[in-house]
């Protein structure tokens, strides 16, 4: 077991009523990385996270957290892991602060003497200080998510597992979370961030794992993943159908049409060559832009389909 992996899984799988929700996932999350666990809704991210944290028993596979074999080491590793799984959950009739107090006290290893200070600190970090005395049921979705993050930050952590942490947050909140994730990573923590939002992952992550229908399709550093897809060309034209034929005829891949726009991976094709051919074929070109591949392009290239909800 490599000691420099914060999370390591081998053949992790989970069946629900005979259908695989997670299907032979081999994660290798380097210690100190900010790892984006990317996949559309229903691709098995939350189920994987539940297994990692010992909430679900896998149908198959082994895993270790912070170098220790799970689930045997759960009681000694989990204190170093802060987690947000499938949204926050608290007692609606208690205030945010009382909720954190109970949560902190319901388990071993947390000093009651430092509790008030640690709670105040965590609340401040997520911007909830002013609302700490309000009942949880009066919290907005974004405030609930913040309280969930605060509960993960009550003590310093070596690993943070954050399942869709910006769900329900406004743009300002999303920016704050991004900032918080960078701060945690700068302090040396490993952050395992699951998201169905491509932009979120692209902005903060050093590594990416791409989930699709329960399988881990790729696992690389973000620059590696983006460069593996290569440069792309996007054109706005009068006859996109004809243009797509020309591009495909040139040997470009992943050609797709959306409205009056056509885009595809260039591969070895030069943009100017493509332009000449389009014009030669009688297509009126209004705009032609060479682009770096985005995470979405990489995803489409990996799966051969769009970023949709799995059935």
């Amino acid at each position: 077991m490599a000691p420099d992996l914060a999370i390591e899984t081998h053949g992790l799988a989970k069946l629900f009523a005979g259908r695989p929700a997670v299907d032979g996932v081999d994660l290798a999350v380097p210690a100190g990385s900010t790892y984006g666990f990317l996949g559309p809704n229903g691709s098995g991210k939350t189920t994987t996270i539940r297994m990692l944290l010992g909430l679900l028993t896998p149908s198959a596979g082994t895993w270790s957290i912070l170098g220790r074999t799970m689930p045997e080491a759960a009681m000694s590793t989990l204190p170093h892991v802060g987690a947000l799984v499938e949204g926050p959950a608290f007692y609606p009739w208690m205030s945010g602060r009382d909720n954190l107090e109970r949560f902190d006290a319901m388990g071993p290893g947390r000093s009651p003497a430092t509790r008030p200070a640690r709670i105040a600190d965590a609340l401040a970090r997520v911007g909830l200080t002013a609302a700490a005395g309000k009942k949880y049921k009066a919290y907005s979705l974004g405030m609930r998510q913040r309280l969930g993050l605060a509960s993960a930050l009550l003590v310093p952590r070596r690993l943070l597992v954050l399942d869709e942490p910006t769900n329900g947050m406004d743009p300002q909140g999303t920016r704050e979370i991004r900032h918080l994730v960078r701060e945690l990573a700068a302090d040396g923590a490993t952050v395992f961030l699951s998201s169905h939002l491509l932009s979120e992952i692209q902005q903060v992550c050093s590594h990416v794992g791409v989930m699709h229908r329960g399988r881990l399709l790729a696992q690389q550093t973000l620059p590696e993943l983006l460069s593996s897809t290569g440069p792309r060309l996007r054109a706005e034209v009068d006859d996109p159908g004809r243009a797509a034929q020309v591009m495909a005829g040139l040997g470009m891949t992943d050609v797709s049409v959306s409205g009056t726009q056509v885009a595809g991976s260039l591969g070895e094709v030069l943009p100017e060559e493509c332009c000449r051919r389009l014009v030669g074929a009688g297509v009126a070109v209004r705009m032609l832009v060479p682009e770096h591949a985005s995470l979405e392009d990489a995803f489409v290239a990996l799966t051969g389909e769009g970023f949709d909800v799995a059935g």
Partner: protein
Amino acid sequence: MWLVEARTVFSRARVRALLAVLLAVPVFLAVAVYLAGGPRAGEGPTFLDRASHNGVFTALAGLVVTMPFFIPLSISVVAGDAVAGEANLGTLRYLLIRPAGRARLLAAKGVVTALFCLAAAVDVVLAGLVAGVILFPHGPVVTLSGTTVPFLDGVGRALLASLVVGVSMFGLAAIGLFVSTLTDVPIAAMAVTIGLVIMSAILDGVSQVAFLHPWLFTNYWTAFTDLARDPMRWHLIWKDFLLQLGYVVVFGAGAWARMLTRDVLA
């Protein structure tokens, strides 16, 4: 950890409302008896005919009245909610990640449910004593055996009776806790538990299944009335405790097995 759990449970509005209802029953009973001038001897439930003779019997009558339904109902609510309520809110997954430890969490839930059993019964007896002492005489107490014991002796017996009743609810509490580990829907766990109380009580009244009676957890629930004899008779109470222990072991083990293996999906 169970102290934190106790504070959470007993500070809940729902739990306080249950205890308030249990408090109100003997008070209403005492006021009704006071206004009616008291039923004649031999009428109404056990002890009710004596409720106006002495405050101690007001408290015991309160237990007799709340025992078949109000106390088991409130215990079913608290026990049924113990694990299913956390699963329903989603807080169960965070307690397990905390990590509270599955067995330790269940133990804390068990201890607090047992505390609630005792609190419910003590609650009834204290309310009955206070109401009885205000409305009725509080001199020496005439026992069921016809002897007379000092008033404080009688008060002591009433408090003892409340503890006995509390303990005789442990079996039900264990059943409720077990059912609570089976579902994510607390109302369902509560309903199933109270359903089992009703079923047990019905079976207890059917003479064709008399062979079952000694095994029903409701069978010895009225054994506490033997504390009003002189000397106190403990025979049935010990039998009851043994039976309750059996239920606690069986359903506690069931709850434990289920808790340790349960997939937490909520």
